[in-house]
């Protein structure tokens, strides 16, 4: 990753033009060529630096639902349980964390009712209780990474 790649990552986390030639517009602001920008974004995707080049949705505004869920997983069972949880397409992120509640993941569904179904399925498959902590109030969602 060179200085231009870092500039692209820093600047394009903030937005991307919606216009007929958006890469050309963004490239002008970045001081590079359109083709160079497209090639670099492809490379950043291929290398796994970017998870995606596209939209971040507001799931609730689309009629969907999101919750944060956690499990107390016995250490010896971690791989098996992680595989069972991750097999659900509604599971968006899954992290091992340092606590008795040691596996934390996000469940995002297209309808609010579907959350309870996914929770029930995971509980049935794993034999573990899910602690589900839906959001009540949002204070800040800036999540950006400067390089």
């Amino acid at each position, binding site marked *: 990753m060179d200085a231009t790649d870092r500039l692209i990552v820093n600047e394009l986390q903030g937005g991307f033009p919606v216009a007929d030639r958006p890469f050309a517009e963004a490239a002008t602001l970045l001081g590079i060529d359109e083709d160079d920008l497209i090639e670099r974004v492809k490379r950043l995707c291929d290398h796994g630096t970017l998870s995606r*080049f596209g939209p971040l949705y507001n799931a609730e505004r689309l009629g969907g639902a999101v919750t944060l869920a956690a499990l107390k997983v016995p250490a010896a069972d971690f791989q098996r349980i992680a595989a069972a949880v991750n097999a659900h397409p509604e599971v968006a992120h899954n992290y*091992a964390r340092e606590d008795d509640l040691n596996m934390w993941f996000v469940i995002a569904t297209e309808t609010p009712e579907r959350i309870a179904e996914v929770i029930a399925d995971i509980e049935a498959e794993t034999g573990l209780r899910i602690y589900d902590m839906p959001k009540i109030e949002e204070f800040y969602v800036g999540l950006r990474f400067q390089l």
Partner: protein
Amino acid sequence: MIPDRIDKLLLRAIADGLPLVSRPYAAVAARVGLGEDEVISRLRRLVEGGIIKRLGVIVRHHELGYRANAMVVWDVPDGEVTEVGRRVAAYPFVTLCYRRTRRPPDWRFNFYCMIHGKDRAVVLRQIAVLNWQAGLARYPQAVLFSRRRFKQRGACFDAAPAREVA
């Protein structure tokens, strides 16, 4: 704004990413059977209306060196949590900040901050700032660093074959 059926079709078509070509919205338009102008005007409305929170680069922060990722939780009385949240949200190192449902007796915490850092010692100092400067020290709390990531959704889209969407 309320997205209609065509908006949802469009959102589904770009969910995995924009085509990495000079006219990505024309490529999307061809896939969903709309005109380029209509795709652009609909996407503009979806961005302005907040349905699309952000369009652009979605990073894998772990790959970029952000490996000290702490979820910090506090048990803040319900009557104080909104005020605390507004105060804490102003700290630049806080990447996400929420109030969530408690699950007593096992999980009493209702106030969550994510801090994504490159260095665990720096993150611990930032947590100390929240405790001593933002006034959170008096509340019961826990720090849960992530040990391992098992899943982060998302794939880049690149020049996929044309397909019909019914």
